[in-house]
């Protein structure tokens, strides 16, 4: 990554910020983004990404305040690089992700109620049973590919069951669909185009399973249709929000579990701590989210001329927020590069924050806690047997394959 101060005349839009030609989406960066993030944080509180014509933020404090000010830094222009206010979106914008207040509050209220602790805690007992069965299976095998056998298997079972969609097709279609959606949080690059082409079958399948007649009668999907019956949503909004649950809720949780397994495979003494005290699972998961954030970056767009960290930004300006970097910012986290399950990692930005903070974060935490706790009780040690295969995506980080061996307690 090279960083130079551009002459004022060359970059009128970025007169006061350091300029970098850093490419957040290059394979080599995705392999290990953290040294790059350190350089971005050291450039200053704000910088200009010359390749993409966007400003960037990589420190915790600035990202936190931008995400909390949804009136000035909006989502309706899209959360990827494309500005929906002036460009045609790749799909019809989401009525929750890509909406601003007051429109956003109407859908957010329904989804927040659906995914609130009071509603989802009813799923805990079922998830705990499924986690025990899954841990039985992986321990019986001993040698596993932890991605399909464990990290993907769990959400594909418990989350898809919670939404209430049919069994057939989950493995084939759910993860490619999410892959496409999360690629769209970056630029419309080759990676996104290839993924979009490959996802056509998934798009058709998703549209089908989101229909009321294909859902269970009491799942989260059916509850969205019930909200429409009560007039809280328009009838056509219910299937759109079922689709949102499926696109937002699978890949992210799968990758979070992958990242957890990788953190513990790399740090056996941290696994020993959790194994000795499985009730630490929820706290440990929070540290995984901080240390190896699933989501790495996305965009906001200015709604007016505004100054950020002393730099005057124009209206309709894209800003990339590197939350994966904020969670490693030493200004916020002592020993930021140490994975420590004893740490109080609350307040990390892995799920974003403010009115657009991830609506599914409590069900994601529930799934992660339940599976980690079951593993902690039953698995004495785990080891990576060969190099894992990274999954390249524009905004989320995880793995396609993680050959591991597990030893029963």
């Amino acid at each position, binding site marked *: 990554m090279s960083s130079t101060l551009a002459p004022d005349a060359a970059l009128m839009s970025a007169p006061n910020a350091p300029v970098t030609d850093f490419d957040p989406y290059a394979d080599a960066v995705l392999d290990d983004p953290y040294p790059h993030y350190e350089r971005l944080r050291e450039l200053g509180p704000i910088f200009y990404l010359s390749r993409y014509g966007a400003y960037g933020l990589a420190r915790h404090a600035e990202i936190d305040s931008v995400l909390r000010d949804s009136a000035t830094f909006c989502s309706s222009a899209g959360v990827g690089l494309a500005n929906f206010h002036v460009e045609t979106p790749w799909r019809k914008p989401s009525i929750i992700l890509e909406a601003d207040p007051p429109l956003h*509050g109407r859908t957010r209220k329904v989804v927040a*109620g659906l995914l*609130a*602790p009071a509603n989802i805690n009813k799923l805990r007992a079922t998830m705990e049973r499924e986690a025990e069965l899954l841990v039985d299976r992986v321990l019986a095998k001993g040698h596993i590919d932890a991605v399909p056998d464990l990290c993907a298997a769990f959400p594909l079972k418990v989350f898809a069951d919670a939404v209430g969609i049919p069994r057939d097709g989950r493995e084939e279609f759910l993860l490619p669909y999410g892959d496409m959606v999360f690629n769209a949080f970056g630029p419309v690059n080759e990676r996104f185009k290839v993924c979009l082409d490959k996802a056509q079958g998934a798009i058709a399948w998703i549209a089908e399973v989101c229909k009321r007649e294909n859902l269970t009668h009491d799942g989260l999907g059916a509850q969205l249709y019930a909200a429409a019956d009560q007039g809280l949503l328009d009838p056509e909004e219910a299937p759109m929000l079922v689709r949102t649950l499926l696109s937002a809720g699978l890949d992210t949780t799968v990758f979070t579990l992958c990242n957890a397994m990788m953190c513990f495979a790399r740090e056996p003494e941290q696994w020993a701590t959790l194994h000795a005290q499985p009730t630490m699972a929820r706290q440990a998961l929070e540290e995984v989210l901080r240390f190896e954030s699933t989501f790495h970056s996305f965009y906001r767009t200015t709604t007016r001329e505004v100054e950020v960290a002393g730099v005057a930004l124009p209206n309709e300006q894209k800003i990339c927020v590197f939350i994966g970097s904020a969670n490693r910012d030493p200004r916020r986290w002592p020993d930021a590069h140490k994975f420590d399950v004893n740490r109080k990692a*609350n307040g990390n*930005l892995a799920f974003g924050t403010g*009115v657009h*903070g991830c609506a599914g974060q409590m069900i994601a935490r529930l799934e992660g806690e339940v599976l980690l706790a079951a593993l902690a009780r039953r698995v004495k040690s785990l080891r990576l047997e060969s190099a894992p295969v990274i999954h390249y995506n524009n905004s989320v980080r995880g793995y396609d394959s993680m050959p591991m061996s597990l030893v029963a307690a």
Partner: protein
Amino acid sequence: MTSATSQITFIQPDGSARTIAVVAGANVMLTALANGIAGIVAECGGAAMCATCHVYLNEGSAAFVAPVSEVENEMLESAASGRRENSRLGCQVVVQPGAGEIVVQIPSHQV
């Protein structure tokens, strides 16, 4: 220009109290975390998604803060220690300019 100073008083279930001086724009949840006030969990960090920064707002304080939003109203149903008329999520309670003392009671449990 300096913001007029206000204060937030946190009362624990055992009756012990602590008062923190704040400026307009301060948020009850973040103030509690920054000052190590016990009983505010704030698992979601301020996205109004977890209901673990639940507080009871004393009657005289209501005038100093904005009313409950739709999303907060929905989320208060998840408050572990039971919702009351004066229940608020600390993360959504922001000190308005010119506010006097804001007094909140911390419930017995958050999860």
